[in-house]
């Protein structure tokens, strides 16, 4: 796994969330859903942002809270989808 690529994805998603939600900081393992950082109104925007920014499509099979529960999880999900596309 390319560490720079991983950090780039994580920081990109972090910046988007911090620019949209009124929280002071967001750590890599903060739970996005349980904490209420991502509510039902923001979830679809976050999904669209991830799809658009990383040129992936979130589909039915990807609907697993483990894919989105934190910045680390989201980053791993994007890397996995990119791997599927490139592989």
């Amino acid at each position, binding site marked *: 796994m390319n560490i720079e690529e991983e950090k780039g994805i994580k920081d990109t998603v972090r910046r988007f969330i911090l620019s*949209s939600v009124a929280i002071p900081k967001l750590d890599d393992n903060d739970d996005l859903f349980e904490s209420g950082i991502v509510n*039902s109104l923001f979830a679809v*925007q976050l*999904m669209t942002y991830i799809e*658009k920014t990383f040129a992936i499509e979130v589909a039915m099979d990807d*609907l697993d809270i483990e894919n989105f529960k934190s910045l680390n999880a989201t980053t791993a999900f994007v890397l996995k989808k990119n791997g599927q596309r490139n592989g």
Partner: protein
Amino acid sequence: MGDLQSVWPATDGTAVSRCVPVQPALTDRQEARYRDFKAFVALNVEPFAGQWDREQRIPDSVITLLAKSGFLGGTLPPHFDGLGWDVVTFGLLNEALGRGSPALTGVVTVQAMVSMTLLKWGTKEQKEKWLPSLAKGEKIGAFALTEPGAGSDIQSLATGLTPAGDHFILNGTKKWISCAQIASVFLVFAKLGRSPVACLVPRDTPGLSVEPIDDLMGFRGAGLAQIHFKDVEVPSASLIGKPGFALSLVAPVGLHYGRISTACSALGLLRGCFEESIAHAAMRKLGDKTVGDMGMIRSLIARMGTDLEAGNLLCHDACRAQDEHLPEAFEKTLVAKYFSSKAAVRAAADAVQIKGASGCHATSPVSRYYRDAKIMEIIEGTTQIHEDILGKIFVDRAGSFGR
């Protein structure tokens, strides 16, 4: 208002339509389709919309005509027998239909809500099974979300799905469901334990019954109904998406298209109010003057025309953002729906005022617009819900500065 042309005396609808603001930045193909949509509405919708309103029913032949024109599958891709339109074009269809009959637009709205949700979250098998027949209008869908006790507070759904071996059992009631009277399949939102879940239920499933809701103030031809589910068997293969995501990711796709459609339909209604008002103001004599010579009437028309221009831009911007798959499409659509539906209510009230007694009679479309416009402030999220969401978005964004 760059396209306002001096064509008085206005002698027919064509002359009046030349006096409204042009749609912004359309491609040649979008422009051509918009002309076709308006011609379709002038021929097949406007002359009959009052009758549908009085009879509280849109004839099957009109739905068939919509289907044969491809209007019920415009946004679906060609490989599912849709027309593969961009969302701007979908918005233009809704604008044109909204000028004629917002109730009829409701069929297009709901069909898009169901089919675009399926396109995003359906399995390959579900898409292949349902999307071609939805695109061709052989099946009409309904979006069964609202309940007697769950409208704006959608998290409190009471309709329940319980596991029963290799399938589920659905019990509960949905209310105020547009097109439910004519729908052949329902996209139903329920709770599986504490998890929100969505499923497709065909109308002919045993235990499902439809109870029409008549005598609404507006949208009287939109076929609203209450749907009762009593021990309805739902195969596992009919679940859309996965449990837990129905309200956070599945329903929002449909609601988003519902808001795009409603925003553009409200814009069409607003255009109707404007066209009726300027024609009346120019033609109706008051002694040796016209109604339009009165400053107070000009004031009402100025606001209406300005709202129309602004609404055009907001709706176009929202549709274009969706075409570009931008995350801000969600917010732009909320803004467009909020503005257009409120502006439509203002314009309809002012159009009745401008036309006076004649505007209060059923023979004038503005009396119907007055009733229909109010519905647009309620469906797909009330004005107050929009204010709550948008206010939070704006404040949160301001709160993010300085970090």
